[in-house]
């Protein structure tokens, strides 16, 4: 039965996070944009307290044997998560990306052994804030992850990693500023192509791993994005995620598993975009309210102002992106394959946020262009969502392949 009402549970959580976003994130947003590479410690510590508590509960649940027979409520984790991220990004996307934890944690959670979970995730239930980053991109391997040149080689009881990773979100926080770790994609066998690529967990402070550069960026400046170099960096054998066996060349099944994490993360990036876009629209509409500018629906374009139409298009595009995102999440909650829908959500959200935030800046004239308001920041922050976790173009390619039922070879 088609239904667009989010559950009470989600609605409550959404409200709570919204309050937090409004009171704790918005007031700090500008400061950590202007003071690039400063850590928003107050915010981080606050989020950490909350996250420790949640992680403890989750950790205990995951180690306890499942009770059978107990009727489960339909899962709605993804939809919940999307709504939380929308609110946090409505607060501030840069700060949101600073929250302890991260994609590395999600990866260990998804495919780690129970030993790995104990070794790497237990720490998220106690002590100081920690991050688990994910290092995929290289200078010459962006969307084309198969071109990864970082290597892992076995040497006795260790893997030895070599290579350079760029654009590691929260990388410095994970391996230098906290007792975290980074999950590194590296190849065991270049001749095996995609199948040779595996991911390895590297502890903070492991010798041979160095943060060499912090990127200066257009937006999301509160979030650290760094380059990490691995030089003969030795890690224990059981720090590999998943099997160490390299499939034969034609097989991409191992790689597909890795790529499938994108199906989970892309709707979340979309949700983040939507949060920023909503911030912009909310702001514009509040300003209109103050200034007595009306947005009228359903009247002739001969009477409607150009601005009214702009705002209507912004609203419709944002809502379209939101519904596509919810659909992708809803499918994920039901364990339906959502590869196509995840990319649709991400692609549409990227376009929508670009349209919405760029237009919002224009609509506010000199005020929109000024760093006194957050509007221009949202335009800068928002742009990242059309670039990371697969550019708009990569997502279009995925969509095209799916609708055409084409392989990677048939549609390059």
């Amino acid at each position: 039965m088609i239904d667009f009402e989010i559950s009470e549970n989600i609605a409550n959580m959404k409200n709570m996070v919204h309050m937090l976003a409004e009171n704790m994130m918005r007031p700090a947003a500008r400061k950590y944009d202007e003071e690039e590479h400063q850590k928003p410690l107050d915010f981080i510590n606050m989020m950490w307290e909350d996250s420790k508590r949640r992680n403890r509960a989750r950790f205990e649940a995951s180690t306890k044997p499942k009770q059978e027979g107990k009727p489960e409520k339909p899962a709605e984790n993804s939809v919940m998560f999307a709504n939380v991220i929308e609110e946090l990004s409505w607060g501030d996307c840069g700060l949101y990306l600073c929250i302890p934890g991260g994609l590395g944690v999600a990866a260990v959670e998804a495919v780690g052994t129970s030993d790995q979970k104990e070794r790497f995730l237990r720490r998220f239930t106690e002590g100081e804030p920690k991050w688990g980053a994910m290092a995929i991109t290289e200078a010459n391997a962006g969307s084309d992850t198969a071109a990864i040149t970082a290597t892992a080689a076995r040497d006795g009881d260790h893997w030895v990693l070599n290579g350079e990773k760029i654009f590691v979100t929260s990388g410095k926080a994970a391996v230098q500023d906290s007792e975290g770790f980074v999950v590194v994609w590296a190849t065991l066998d270049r001749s095996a192509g995609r199948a040779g690529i595996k991911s390895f967990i590297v502890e903070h402070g492991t010798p041979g791993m160095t943060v060499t550069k912090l990127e200066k960026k257009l937006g999301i400046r509160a979030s650290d994005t760094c380059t990490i170099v691995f030089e003969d960096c030795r890690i224990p054998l059981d720090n590999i995620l998943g099997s160490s066996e390299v499939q034969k060349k034609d097989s991409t099944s191992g790689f597909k598993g890795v790529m499938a994490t994108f199906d989970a993360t892309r709707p979340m990036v979309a949700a983040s975009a939507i949060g920023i876009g909503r911030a912009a629209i909310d702001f514009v509409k509040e300003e209109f309210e103050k200034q007595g500018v009306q947005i009228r629906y359903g009247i002739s374009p001969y009477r409607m102002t150009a601005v009214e139409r702009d705002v209507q298009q912004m609203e419709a595009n944002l809502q379209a992106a939101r519904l596509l995102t919810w659909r992708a999440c809803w499918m994920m909650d039901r364990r339906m394959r959502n590869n196509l829908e995840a990319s649709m959500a991400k692609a549409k959200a990227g376009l929508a946020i670009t349209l919405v935030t760029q237009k919002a800046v224009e609509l506010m004239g000199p005020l929109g262009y000024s760093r006194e308001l957050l509007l221009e920041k949202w335009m800068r922050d928002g742009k990242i969502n059309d670039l990371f976790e697969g550019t708009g173009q990569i997502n279009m390619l995925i969509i095209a392949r799916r609708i055409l039922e084409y392989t990677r070879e048939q549609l390059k």
Partner: protein
Amino acid sequence: MLSFELSDDQRMIYETVRKFALNEMRPIYRECDEGGKIPPEFISKAWELFLIPNNVPEAYGGVGEPRSAVTGAILAEELAYGDFSLAVCMLCPASVVYPLIEFGTEDQKQKYLPLFCEESFKPASAAFMEPRIDFDLPSMQTKAAAEGGSYVINGEKCLVPLAADAEVILVYAQTDASADAKGVQAFLVDKGTAGMEISEREKNMGLKALDTRKVIFKDCRVPKESRLGGEAGCNVSKLLNYSFVGLAAMAVGVSKAAFEYARDYAKERVAFGEPIASRQAIAFMLAEMAIEVDATRLLTWEAAWRLDKGLESDREAYLAKQYAAEKVLMITDRAVQVLGGHGYIREHPVELWLRNGRGFATFDGLVTI
């Protein structure tokens, strides 16, 4: 709780209508467009689906299924996926029946509803649009003035489907010049009422299979009782929202048809040694079309769902329709582009979809669900 799944009932209706669209509409739509005619056999077959009586309360001869805008949107999408002109023709009586169910007085329901639950199709229609470039609801120029026990209607309507044969036309008119959109009310005007003149058939770029007319009212006098809802009147904005959602859903149907056709063509058509779909320029066009078909459908469903829930939906219904009108034009135009020169030829359906697609920005009030 959030769900993107059809209910069992909705799935059944979807499958029935889709089959009908593919088996009964697709084989004849081109001939109907070229000839400007819809075969009576088609209309009979379509009526056998009993789509409209399905939602009429049993007391008036219907099946009594509660009406749902979401279900209506699903149904309208598939019908328009078959053919837009034929779909409008099939659903035309709903423009009278559904407003009657929603707002009609007991007398009005008893008088009209049973007529549209019979075994054979009875034409009926709504007269909403006016032949002006800046038409909208608040500025409606057709007037209904109360005079004694009657209303006297004056004005000019256009794009009234099946007007020539309609048993009754629901005519929208301004009753109170000072009241803006709220002053607009609807009147049940029976066939042959003096002062209602049905003009020659309109010639349009698209919608060619469908007989639409200008309808001119010159001191057309109707009894007070013919005002929809009687004294209480009706909420025209709400009726318009159903029309917006219906149009949006039909735009999705046309878009989906165009997208699928272009996609299949692009996979078959070989140029420079490979299917043209294997080139990013074409593939990305198709990807964008696919996204927007889904995006439009979701916006439409959400607006429909709000209507069903009784939530405020003026904004959502209007935006869904605007968005759909923009996207159906984009998608049908792209479909022609994917076919290249072949898209310009009337052997392929895409040019027809483009002609119909361009109309959605204008078709306010043409359908309801």
